[in-house]
């Protein structure tokens, strides 16, 4: 008999998600889907608010990456008032962003992904968590805590608090610069952060070498890639042009300005998920679907400006033998290489003499009726777009979050894994774990993706060809 398996909630991702797997009469997987269902309604309830409130309001979309929303929003506000951001303010914002990458990538690797990598997919769930990791490799676990703390401390020093900070060096919230004492304190810690990320890269590389066949086969598929690059085409996280490449790493579109995103990106809607599916307009859906985030960024950039991360990136590129690295598990490797870059970049920023220059930026009048702000969030490209009236009142808001861009890819990954590992007749713990692990590669932030929608626990449902739910595995939460 045909079944649907539901995994709910998917654990150790940010937020909750639900997966349904449809199997045919022969017990083979015919389709797997990841659903998102929660309703918060940011795009609508922000209408009528004043644009300069948005950096504080939109960071509440997500408690994991509030800095990303804060900065994308701040940049959209800059565009509305036509602000040329002074160099020191730009450095402060970028430093805060690097703090965010350090803490977010550390959180994902050490708290969320390492149980799979260190303990294996089939380990007892009682120990397959961060506590188990502490037992298996206490030194690594402590490094994880330390890295996270450092990143959070960067954010706190610049923004007052770790979650929902309020600085961002913007006309909407520029309040305090970086004091010489705080700069010194951060400089004292940064070498250790760089070193710890180097070790983390070594650990993930070691895992990849030991599990070569798994790495190359697990949720591996071609896709387009999107992300920001700097003027030289190198990895860029804070400010640059958008690059959109096809599966062969040939440009689908010449690099374009973030403000032009609507010309090139459309959003497809499926009736079974609240989360939309972005795609490259010229190719349509699903031919124009692409991935974002660490794997995409390392695939599409032409280099990395900092030496240690650049060396690792070269080895990473070699894995693709000239083409793209397509395996979803390689997100983990790409993520730690990016963490290393963020640490090195933070060190450069802290050494810049302009970083302690304090100046007041005042909020000018509305100059442009619309503003776009784009940053690379830890999970991928984040787009904020606001339309305002002459008094600065918001008339329309459009947000495309990182996890949204990866919506198609996550579904594809779940499909790949379900087909390879799920036997329709039985639900095993290891199979559930693998489906979860596929999703976890993308480090989906379901708070972000449900900014418009509500709760999203991952339920695994076994569904017959007729769509009837035959079995369901829900782990609390649901």
């Amino acid at each position, binding site marked *: 008999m045909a079944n649907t398996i539901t995994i709910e909630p998917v654990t150790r991702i940010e937020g909750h998600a639900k997966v349904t797997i449809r199997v045919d009469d022969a017990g083979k997987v015919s389709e797997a889907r990841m659903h998102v269902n929660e309703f*918060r*309604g940011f795009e609508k*309830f922000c209408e009528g608010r004043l644009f300069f409130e948005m950096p504080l309001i939109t960071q*509440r979309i997500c408690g994991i990456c*509030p800095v990303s929303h804060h900065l994308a929003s701040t940049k959209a506000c800059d565009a509305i008032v036509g602000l040329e951001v002074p160099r020191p303010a730009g450095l402060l914002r970028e430093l805060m962003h690097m703090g965010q990458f350090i803490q977010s990538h550390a959180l994902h690797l050490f708290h969320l992904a390492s149980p799979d990598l260190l303990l294996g997919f089939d380990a007892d769930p009682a120990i397959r968590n961060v506590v188990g990791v502490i037992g298996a490799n206490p030194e690594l676990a402590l490094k994880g805590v330390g890295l996270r703390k450092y990143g959070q401390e960067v954010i706190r020093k610049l923004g007052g*608090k770790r979650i929902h900070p309020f600085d961002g060096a913007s006309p909407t919230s520029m309040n305090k610069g970086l004091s010489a004492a705080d700069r010194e304190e951060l400089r004292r810690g940064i070498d250790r952060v760089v070193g710890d990320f180097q070790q983390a890269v070594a650990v993930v590389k070691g895992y990849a070498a030991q599990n070569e066949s798994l790495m190359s086969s697990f949720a591996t598929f071609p896709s387009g890639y999107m992300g920001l690059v700097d003027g030289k085409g190198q990895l860029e996280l804070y400010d640059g042009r958008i690059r959109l490449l096809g599966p062969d790493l040939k440009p689908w579109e010449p690099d374009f300005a973030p403000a032009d995103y609507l010309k090139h990106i459309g959003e497809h809607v499926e*009736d079974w998920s609240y989360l939309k599916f972005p795609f490259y307009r010229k190719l349509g859906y699903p031919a124009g679907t692409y991935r974002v985030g660490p794997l995409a960024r390392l695939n599409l950039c032409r280099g990395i400006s900092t030496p240690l991360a650049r060396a690792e990136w070269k080895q990473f590129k070699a894995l693709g033998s000239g083409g793209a690295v397509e395996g979803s598990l390689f997100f983990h490797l790409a993520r730690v290489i990016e963490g290393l870059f963020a640490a090195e970049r933070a060190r450069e920023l802290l050494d810049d003499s302009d970083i302690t220059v304090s100046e007041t930026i005042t909020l000018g009048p509305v100059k442009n009726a619309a503003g776009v702000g784009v940053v690379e969030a830890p999970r991928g490209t984040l787009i904020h777009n606001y339309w305002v009236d002459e008094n600065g009142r918001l008339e329309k808001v459009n947000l495309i979050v990182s996890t949204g861009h990866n919506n198609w890819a996550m579904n594809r990954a779940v499909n790949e894994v379900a087909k390879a590992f799920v036997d329709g007749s039985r639900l095993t713990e290891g199979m559930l774990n693998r489906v979860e692990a596929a999703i976890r590669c993308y480090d989906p932030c379901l708070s972000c993706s*449900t900014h418009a929608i509500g709760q999203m626990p991952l339920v695994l449902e076994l569904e017959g060809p007729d769509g009837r739910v035959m079995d369901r595995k829900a*782990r*609390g939460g649901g």
Partner: protein
Amino acid sequence: MPRTGAFTADGKPKVAVYKFSSCDGCQLAILNLEDQLLDLVGAIEVAYFVEARRRELPPPYAIGLVEGSVSTPEEEERIHKIRRDCDFLVTIGACATSGGIQALRNWADVEEFTRYVYAYPEYIKALDTATPIAAHVFVDFELRGCPVNRFQILELVAATLAGRKPAIPTYSLCIECKRRGVSCRLVSAGKPCLGPVTQAGCGALCPAYNRACYGCFGPMELPNVDSLGERFIGLGYSPAEITRMLRSFNGYVEPFKQASDRYAQRD
């Protein structure tokens, strides 16, 4: 009275952490207790915490920490089961305590919302309102803030373990500001600071960064919102602006909601 099953064999309280519609920030505040996290995990039994671990222990739980507001029919059902499962139910953060930022939609037409954002609005199963947990079940204790102060979570657990009342102040933010020696944003800068009607607990974070308080800890005990509103009008702010200031992260909690409705009418 706590049930015996709410404690482990060695006497540790079983603690559950739940998420409703929210941003995860308050749960994350628990993980942010780096220096105290191991102490905390040693003193309690984390029985249910989806974000941190797969394993779960069956209810009852001695303490339930709830993040997020009730926004979907499914959540409306789930909170009643959670109430039965937890002996001491604590809301953590503005969403759970007052409805949070998404409660702004309570002043609008939700159907219009979903039509706007989604191609298949009929598929969206959202309630018309985003409401605090206490609108559905009895809540034993509230921790305020957007996000919560992680040390208040620690204090709550420590106090519960010691069998005493948590030392969570209910007075105004001004008292924290003055203790800390932060210059008054309202008096010395003419900024519309909500501190005089907002509950302390954050440590005067915003004023210390030269920002007016925007009330993320919600109303203090006996908030005199009208008097502060009159002061803002004296500073040149319009009733519409005051309405907007009150309707933010705690806009749907009674004293702020009522005052904002009055100012909205004056507009």
